[in-house]
C-alpha cells in the first residue's frame, strides 16, 4: 500500500514539470494521482501501520486480548478492500470529492466510519475493564485518537457536501487539521510513547508531563483548523482564535517533546536500537514541524507562504518525517517481538539513512521553491514566471523520491531477510 501511494506521488510530482507524462489518459492526470497519493498515505500506509501496531501494543498495555479475532479480520478486509482499493479505483475512474484529506467519494467514507466504529469496539473496551487510573500515556493516545477521529471524520467528509461555499470550507478547514491532529498525531505519539520505554527499559521521564501534553493536545488541536483559511471571508474572530490555538499548540508540543527527550537522555538511543532510533527521529521531526506549523499560522508569515510549495514541504515533514518514522519504528519494534520473524539490521540501517536524506532534501527544496513563488507573486510578475522559476526545484523534488523509495524498499527487505528472531548467529 505504501509503495502504491508513493508511486502515485512520484508520478504526480513528475507531471508537475512534464505534464505530457499522462499521455492524455484521464486516469493518469495530475489531479487524480494527487488525490490517490494523499489518501493512500493516510489510509493505505498510516492506517494499516497504526492498526497493526495496536494489535501488538494494546494487549501488552492492558494485559488483555483485544475484543475479537474475527472482528480483526473484518476490519482488515473493510479497511483494505472496501476503503483503500475501491477508493483508489473510484478516484482514478473519476468519482471523488474535491476536499483535502477527504478525496475518496462519499460511498467509501461510509465504510471508513464503519471501520472506525469497529476499531472502537476492537481496541477500547479492554482499556475500560480496570478503570483508567493505571492507563499508560500510550493507551490514552490510542483512546483519544480513535474516539476523536471517529467524531471528526464525518465533519470533513460529509458536511461540505451540504453546506455551500465558505460555510462548508469552515468545516473542511477543521477536518484538514483533525486528520493530521486527531488521527495521525495521537497514534504516532502512542507508538513513540510505547517504543521508548519498551526499548530502553526505563519509564518515561514524567507521567505528569505526559498527561499534561496529552490533554492539552486534545484541547487545542481541534481549535486549529481555520488557520488553513487565513485572510478569507470566514469571520476574522474565528481566524484569530485558530491562530491563537495554533500558537499554544506549539507550547504543548514543546512540553511533549521535552518529556520524550528527557526520557531518552543517557540511553544511547542512536546506536542502541534501530526502532528506537526511528521513533526518536520522529520526535525531532515532530518538534520541527509543529513549531513550523505554529509560525506559519501567524498572519504575517501565512500571508506570504500560504498557497506555495512551502506548505507542501511542511506536510511532507509531518506525514513522512514525523508519522512515517514513528510508524516504521513501531512496526519494526513489534516485528522483532514476533517469534520466527526475520530481521536484517543492515537493511533497516540503510532504510533509515536513505529516507532521512531524501526527506531532508525534499523539505529544503520545497521550502525554497515556496519562498521563490511567494516572491514572484508579491512582485506581481506575470503568473507564468512563478511556474518557470521553480521548475528546476520540481525536477529536483522528483529526484528526491529516489532515496526515499529506495529507503522503503530497504525497510521491507529488512523485515523479510536476515536472521530469524531468536536464532543465534
Amino acid at each position, binding site marked *: 500500500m505504501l509503495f502504491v501511494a508513493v508511486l502515485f506521488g512520484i508520478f504526480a510530482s513528475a507531471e508537475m514539470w512534464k505534464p505530457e507524462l499522462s499521455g492524455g489518459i*484521464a486516469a493518469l492526470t*495530475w489531479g487524480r494521482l494527487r488525490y490517490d497519493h494523499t489518501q493512500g498515505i493516510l489510509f493505505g500506509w498510516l492506517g494499516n501501520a497504526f492498526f497493526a501496531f495496536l494489535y501488538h501494543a494494546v494487549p501488552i498495555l492492558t494485559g488483555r486480548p483485544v475484543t475479537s479475532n474475527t472482528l480483526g479480520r473484518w476490519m482488515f478486509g473493510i479497511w483494505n478492500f472496501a476503503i483503500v482499493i475501491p477508493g483508489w479505483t473510484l478516484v482514478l475512474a473519476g468519482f471523488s470529492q*474535491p476536499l483535502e484529506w477527504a478525496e475518496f467519494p462519499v460511498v467509501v467514507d461510509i465504510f471508513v466510519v464503519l471501520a472506525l466504529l469497529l476499531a472502537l469496539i476492537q481496541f477500547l473496551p479492554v482499556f475500560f475493564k480496570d478503570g483508567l487510573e493505571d492507563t499508560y500515556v500510550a493507551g490514552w493516545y490510542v483512546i*483519544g485518537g480513535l474516539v*476523536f477521529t471517529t467524531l471528526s471524520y464525518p465533519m470533513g467528509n460529509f458536511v461540505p457536501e451540504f453546506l*455551500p461555499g465558505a460555510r462548508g470550507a469552515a468545516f473542511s478547514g477543521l477536518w*484538514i487539521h483533525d486528520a493530521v491532529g486527531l488521527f495521525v498525531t495521537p497514534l504516532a505519539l502512542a507508538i513513540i510513547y510505547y517504543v521508548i520505554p519498551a526499548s530502553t527499559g526505563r519509564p518515561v521521564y514524567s507521567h505528569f508531563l505526559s498527561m499534561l501534553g496529552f490533554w492539552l493536545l486534545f484541547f487545542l488541536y481541534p481549535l486549529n483548523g481555520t488557520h488553513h483559511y487565513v485572510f478569507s471571508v*470566514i469571520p476574522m474572530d474565528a481566524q484569530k482564535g485558530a491562530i491563537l490555538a495554533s500558537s499554544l499548540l506549539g507550547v504543548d508540543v514543546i512540553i511533549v517533546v521535552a518529556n520524550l527527550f528527557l526520557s531518552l537522555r543517557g540511553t544511547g538511543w542512536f546506536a542502541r536500537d534501530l526502532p528506537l532510533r526511528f521513533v526518536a527521529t520522529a520526535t525531532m521531526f515532530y518538534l520541527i514541524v509543529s513549531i513550523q506549523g505554529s509560525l506559519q499560522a501567524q498572519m504575517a508569515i501565512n500571508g506570504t507562504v*500560504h*498557497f506555495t510549495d512551502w506548505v507542501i514541504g511542511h506536510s511532507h515533514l509531518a506525514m513522512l518525517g514525523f508519522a512515517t518514522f514513528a510508524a516504521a519504528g513501531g512496526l519494526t519494534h513489534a516485528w522483532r517481538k514476533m517469534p520466527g520473524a526475520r530481521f536484517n539490521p543492515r537493511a533497516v540501517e540503510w532504510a533509515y539513512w536513505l529516507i532521512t536524506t531524501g526527506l531532508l532534501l525534499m523539505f529544503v527544496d520545497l521550502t525554497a521553491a515556496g519562498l521563490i513563488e511567494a516572491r514572484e507573486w508579491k512582485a506581481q510578475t506575470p503568473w507564468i514566471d512563478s511556474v518557470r522559476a521553480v521548475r528546476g526545484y520540481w525536477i529536483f523534488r522528483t529526484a528526491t523520491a529516489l532515496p526515499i523509495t529506495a529507503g522503503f524498499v530497504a525497510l521491507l527487505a529488512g523485515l523479510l531477510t536476515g536472521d530469524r528472531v531468536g536464532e543465534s548467529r
Partner: protein
Amino acid sequence: MKSLRMSYLVAGLGGVGFFAMSVLLLGVWPGRVLEEETRRTSPKNPLALTVSEKRGRQIYAREGCAYCHTQQIRQLDADTVRFGKSTAVWETQFDYPHLWGTRRIGPDLSREGSLHSEDWQLTHLYSPQAVVPDSVMPAFPALFDGAPDRPLQGARDVVTYLAGLGYARALAEPEIALKKTSGPPANGDDAYAHNCAGCHGPHGEGDGPAAAGLSPKPANLVEHEYTEAHVITVLERGIRGSSMQAWRGLPHHDIAHTVRGFYRPVREPAPPPAIRDLGKQVYADHCAQCHGENGDGKGSAAPEVRMAPTDFTSERPTPAETLRALRQGVAGTPMAPWNTKLSEAELSAVAYYVRGFYR
C-alpha cells in the same frame, strides 16, 4: 484513586467539550455569521448554476482542478491586485462542496469568466502548452474529439462553468483595474515569448500552436502596424469577442515595443488622385457605418456588432493584408467578404484609402 478517576472523567468530558467547542466556534458559529452576511450582501436574484455549469463543475472537481487553481482571493494586496476584489461569501453560495483549494500552482480562477474567450478556453483545455508555452497543466484530450475545435459535451460544460466564474460579482460591482506604466520601454521579447507566442507565434506571424483552435485567428503582427497606445490598450482590456484576454500584470510598455518591432514596413507608391477619390467614395458607402467616417472604428453601427470594428487610426494592416480581409472577410468576426459586392478596382482603391487614416 477515586479522585484520580474523577479527574480523568472531568478531563475526558473536557476533551469532548473542547472538540464540541471547536465545532461550534469554528464551524457552526462562522456558518451562521456567513449565512447572515450572505442574506445581507447578496444581490436580489443571485445567479444559480445552469445545468451545463453544474456538469462542468463536477468535471472540474473530479480532475482536481481546485488543487492547483484556488477560488479564493485573499484579503491581501498580493491577491487583489492580480485577481480582483477578495472573495465575498455570497459569491460562494452555490458551491456544493466548496472549491477554495489550499495550493496555487496556476492562477486563481474566481474571476476567470471575464478573462478568456470560449475558444481560448477550449484550446487551452485541449493543450495548455499550445497557448501558454511554459504551462505545467495537464491536457484533457479525453474531453475532445481529436481537436480543440471539436469539443465533446464535457469540454463544453467545463468551459461554460469557467465562463460563469466571477460573472455574478462582475454584474454586482464592476471592477476596472488599469495599470499605469511609465518610463522608456525595456526589451519585452522574454515576456512576449512566455505569454504571447502560444497564439501569435514566436515571430509574430499569428501561427502559434494554439492558432488552429481559435476563431478569429490571432493577429498576424508582422502584417499590422500599431500605435504604442493601441497595443497597451489592448493588453489592458483585451479584445471582446476574440481570444485576446486582458493581460493584467504584464509589462505593457515592453511588450508593445516587441510587438511593434514585428511589423515589416512595405514600400508603397502614392495612389493617383482618381483612385483615392474612388476609395473615399466606396468607404463612405460601405465601410463608414461600422469603421466610422474618420476610420476610428466608431461608426453608427459599431455598437450593434459583436466585436469592435477595427480602428484604422491606431492600427494599419499592410496592403496585402487589407486586400485579403476585404476579399475573404475575417473569419470569426463581423467583417464579411466584399469580393461579390465590389469590383477588384473598388477593393484596391478602398484598401489604399483606409491606410490613410493611420496617425
